[in-house]
């Protein structure tokens, strides 16, 4: 709905993409260690603090959040917006789409942590819709 879009975009404007992106990706790798399978080339992932401080994790997290932010400009057509990335994740990266759902929920937790009460149940509900939409869009071109 227009209200949900406003909530999502309003909150995203306050997001520190670099910091929160790195934190989200790091948390994915800490909370769901099996996701590390895609990042063996990232160097030291041996402990939570190694992961959270790993420069490659931070850089990649920033990339992911930047892409997500770009997607927010195309809420009407997420499938179109993420078509190329979808092909990449299937054909080159071979990532199980379940991982997009896991990352989406981690993103929600990171926003909750940084925005506290401002991340109301309504804001969360709006974001849950968006992360589900993005996850589906990224899975759309899988074959």
């Amino acid at each position: 709905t227009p209200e949900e879009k406003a909530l999502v975009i309003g909150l995203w404007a306050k997001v520190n993409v670099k910091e929160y992106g790195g934190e989200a990706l790091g948390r994915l790798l800490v909370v769901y260690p099996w996701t590390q399978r895609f990042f063996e080339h990232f160097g030291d992932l041996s402990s939570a603090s190694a992961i959270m401080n790993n420069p490659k994790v931070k850089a990649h997290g920033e990339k992911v959040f930047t892409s997500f932010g770009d997607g927010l400009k195309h809420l009407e057509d997420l499938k179109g917006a993420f078509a190329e990335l979808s092909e990449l994740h299937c054909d080159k990266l071979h990532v199980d789409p379940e991982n997009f759902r896991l990352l989406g929920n981690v993103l929600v937790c990171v926003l909750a942590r940084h925005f506290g009460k401002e991340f109301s149940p309504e804001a969360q509900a709006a974001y849950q819709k968006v992360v589900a939409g993005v996850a589906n869009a990224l899975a759309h071109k899988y074959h």
Partner: protein
Amino acid sequence: MSLTKAERTIIITMWSKVSTQADSIGTEALERLFASYPQTKTYFPHFDLHPGLAQLRTHGSKVVAAVGDALKSVDNISGALSKLSELHAYILRVDPVNFKLLSHCLLVTVATRFPADFKAEAHAAWDKFLSIVSSVLTEKYR
């Protein structure tokens, strides 16, 4: 799957803070559940689910109390939650997928209230603990 010593320590330490807001945390988690996942309301046709109402508060505090009970007997969560496990299996028959949804909403609620404590290791420990509680609650389903 069981908690490591380090994970237990993290959760028990945080619990001393969490338990001081137990009722409102339980209530908020349920509000978030119903807002984000409206299909979960189908289990509560007999409730008035408007935020702030008594039924939601009562139920929310029940949920968090059960989580607290599981923590008190963290070596034997299965035993501690045995009655609840039977209730969910034979009477409530809540589809297992919903435990993940409520666990996520509990995490989000804790994250909004305790940002400094909710570090990556704490996030992992809580996620794992709630996942164990969820398994116990569904272990008698079939």
